[in-house]
């Protein structure tokens, strides 16, 4: 499974999200790779799932929107796990 965390610049929130998703997958023993990038270059990052905040999700390429999980919290792992579990595990 490949997941890409997306934000406006690809160096702030998406990086924190990537670190947390890495750690969640690790704790649950799920194999997967997590990358992060900015919304402008997301089409060069094919993935099974994308993770973004609402504003960024609105700017995602149309064909990725169905595979985009919207998270309102990028720092609290429990909140993220709860939301991700609806889609991923």
């Amino acid at each position, binding site marked *: 499974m490949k997941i890409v965390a997306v934000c*406006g610049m690809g*160096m702030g929130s998406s*990086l*924190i999200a990537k670190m*947390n998703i890495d750690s969640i997958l690790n704790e649950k023993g799920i194999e997967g790779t997590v990358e992060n990038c900015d919304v402008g270059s997301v089409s060069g990052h094919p993935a099974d799932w994308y993770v973004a*905040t*609402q*504003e960024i999700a609105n700017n995602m390429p149309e064909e990725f929107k169905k595979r985009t999980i919207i998270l309102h919290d990028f720092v*609290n792992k429990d909140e993220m796990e709860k939301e991700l579990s609806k889609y991923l595990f």
Partner: protein
Amino acid sequence: MAKFTKNDIQLKVEASDCFDAIQKSADLLIASNAITENYVKEIFATYKKFGPYFVIAPGIALAHSRPSKSVRHKAISLITLKSPINFGNKENDPVFIVCVIASTNGNDHIALLKQLGQFLGIRNNIEFLKRAEGQKDVCKIVALLNKKWKE
């Protein structure tokens, strides 16, 4: 190892709106010579382009722009606001923690950001930030930010 210092933190700051709040957080990095005033303009431009997406959790804003010549060295500031302010992010307003992130190349800030992310991911730390004030609490926050968390 990258470390936070007490100059990166300020508590119970008064700000008139979200731009003022970002400016006041950025002022700490201007004072430590990490960024120039122009970086703040770049952050505002980013805000105008993408909206308040950088309010990444309830009450928490991580403001930044791209690496540019306005960044002299990597740094992250953190301020808490005396009165929470709306940034226009329906889910996560009002904001009371405003961080500014600066990176010279998109990578050199990662160690600091990881420390920040782990610190902010712990609910007790957020509760502590809500009531923290004075130099003693600044020192405590710096210690928590620099703590080595288990992987």
